[in-house]
């Protein structure tokens, strides 16, 4: 009895196996009785009572043995198991959570989730539409502006049409041809005032002024526009923006193709593969692309500073 007491004292900090031992002795049972009843080796029972949990096969089995032993002695097993939880970090099994609890958890996030998903969807759709539009509209815009700049038609009140073909041509004036004759005819009429009343002359004069005014406005606009011509010997991505930041051209050009556009200077030019550019002229002056390119790419502003 005294030896058992010393063992108890020495292991008071460890697994409270001595309580199992005390309970066993209170019932007047020996270790062998327990071993026979639980069909466990006597060494396991001793290990349990001495707190040598590490001598047992594993913590899972140790817990099982402790429960069986406690049940056999009719003592509460929880305090012993609680000790094992502390020492071996085996978390107490949470009991089955009720489903209503889950429902509450989900309900909190439910409208939020729904809203954010819809927002995300709308953003994705919006972004893809925007992207699609930018991809498909750009060539159209540049095509339109090119046409407009190639030929400007002016309609006179008499129903005739004046066509001013190229704005930045060397001779920006009125083209030779039928529409121009209309103007000269009108001028000729002015030179023969004898057949006309004062009123008619005034009307004609006003009309002529109007025609000349339009023509001179166009000429002034033409003078401000700059012209950029690029010819290619290889595939190259070209982006050209004018002074207002409007994209004039944004596409890939192949070998042999050309870009000829005009717009308001300065142009910001981006060439994806400057090696593919065989020649560039800005307002008739050659531009040295090789000097401007870095790592095969060229990004510069025309006119050059």
């Amino acid at each position, binding site marked *: 009895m005294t030896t058992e007491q010393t063992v108890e004292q020495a292991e008071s900090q460890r697994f409270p196996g001595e309580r199992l031992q005390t309970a066993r002795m209170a019932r007047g049972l020996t270790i062998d009785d327990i071993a026979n009843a*639980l*069909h*466990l*080796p006597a060494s396991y029972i001793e290990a349990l009572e001495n707190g040598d949990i590490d001598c047992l*096969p*594993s*913590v*899972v*089995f140790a*817990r*099982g*043995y402790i*429960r*069986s032993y406690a049940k056999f002695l009719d003592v509460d097993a929880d305090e012993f198991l609680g000790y094992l939880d502390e020492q071996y970090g085996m978390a107490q*099994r*949470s*009991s*089955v*959570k009720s*489903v209503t609890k*889950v*429902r509450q958890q*989900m*309900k909190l996030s*439910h409208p939020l*989730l*729904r809203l954010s*998903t819809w927002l995300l969807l709308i953003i994705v759709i919006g972004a893809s539409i925007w992207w699609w539009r930018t991809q498909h509209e750009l060539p159209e815009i540049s095509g339109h502006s090119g046409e407009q700049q190639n030929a400007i038609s002016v309609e006179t009140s008499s129903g005739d049409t004046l066509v001013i073909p190229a704005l930045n041509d060397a001779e920006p004036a009125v083209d030779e041809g039928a529409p121009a004759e209309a103007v000269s005819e009108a001028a000729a009429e002015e030179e023969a005032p004898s057949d006309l009343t004062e009123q008619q002359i005034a009307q004609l004069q006003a009309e002529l002024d109007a025609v000349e005014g339009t023509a001179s406005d166009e000429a002034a606009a033409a003078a401000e526009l700059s012209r950029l011509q690029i010819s290619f010997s290889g595939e190259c991505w070209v982006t050209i923006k004018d002074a207002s930041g409007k994209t004039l051209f944004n596409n890939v050009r192949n070998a042999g193709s050309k870009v000829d556009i005009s717009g308001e200077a300065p142009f910001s030019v981006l060439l994806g593969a400057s090696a593919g550019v065989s020649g560039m002229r800005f307002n008739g002056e050659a531009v040295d692309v090789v000097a401007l390119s870095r790592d095969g790419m060229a990004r510069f502003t025309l006119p050059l500073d």
Partner: protein
Amino acid sequence: MLKKIRGIFSSDLSIDLGTANTLIYVRDRDIVLNEPSVVAIRQTGNQKSVAAVGSDAKRMLGRTPGNITAIRPMKDGVIADFHVTEKMLQYFISKVHDNSFLTPSPRVLVCVPCKSTQVERRAIKESALGAGAREVYLIDEPMAAAIGAGLPVEEANGSMVVDIGGGTTEIAVISLNGIVYAESVRVGGDRFDESIVTYVRRNYGSLIGDATAERIKQEIGTAYPATEVREIDVRGRNLAEGIPRSFTLNSNEILEALQEPLSSIVQAVKSALEQCPPELASDIAERGIVLTGGGALLRNIDRLIGEETGLPVIVAEDPLTCVARGGGKALEMLDKHGFELVAHD
């Protein structure tokens, strides 16, 4: 494609589709659902609709009017009514997710009895797919039970697990992540209830329902003679008089009633030990047999098996949820170790 997108919003599930109870373990969230596998079907004209599922439906069992039938779609651990099982799974999966915005499409691991046939496995797989699962993996029930009980399944060391479910009892010897020997007997909690009903009819001339029988089993049922005798008052319809009568049952009577199904389980355990390779048998003798499943909650069943085999027997912690938790752990291991643990069909 749509299933994949919906899958992002769904969590992986491990389902213990049992005869008596269905448990769902959600990855990283523990067991979230534990409901009886019962569905109540309402019939209006030729139209059939689900009236209740789970515990609501279980309360209706044996108490339904003509137009409602409460069905237990699982029998002996396998599907008895395919469509009703599908509906039930669908309900449980959506209940766990509770998100009406997107129909959940989770990866699902379902536990199947180890001796189920290809047809039965296929049926379980199909019904889970029909319930909205994106991918379905099957795992042998005893394997899941062993993992859930915390047994060292990956070690070269034999572990014996006896999973006493509602419909079947699965006995398996596991070593190195694989099943060395498995046996499945169609005896479980349901058979215990039936035996109690039969015993009461024979000895008291009274008829009791399954629900009452289950209550008797839970409250005073025992598998091994105990010093303490418990009693319970029950009411049943007297067959001779046709009038409900009250009578008292004690635990020794229930022990007698349960003798037959219990001896089948003991027999199966013994034959498993017989068939077991000697090395593994010695491992089991050293460490003991582990009991899981709802049947392990029957009082003194560990004592009975221990006395009959002479081996140490321990009841796993939280035996009811072992299989579902083990399935959950297997699901987590699935990503790390591949398909080693999952049954191939």
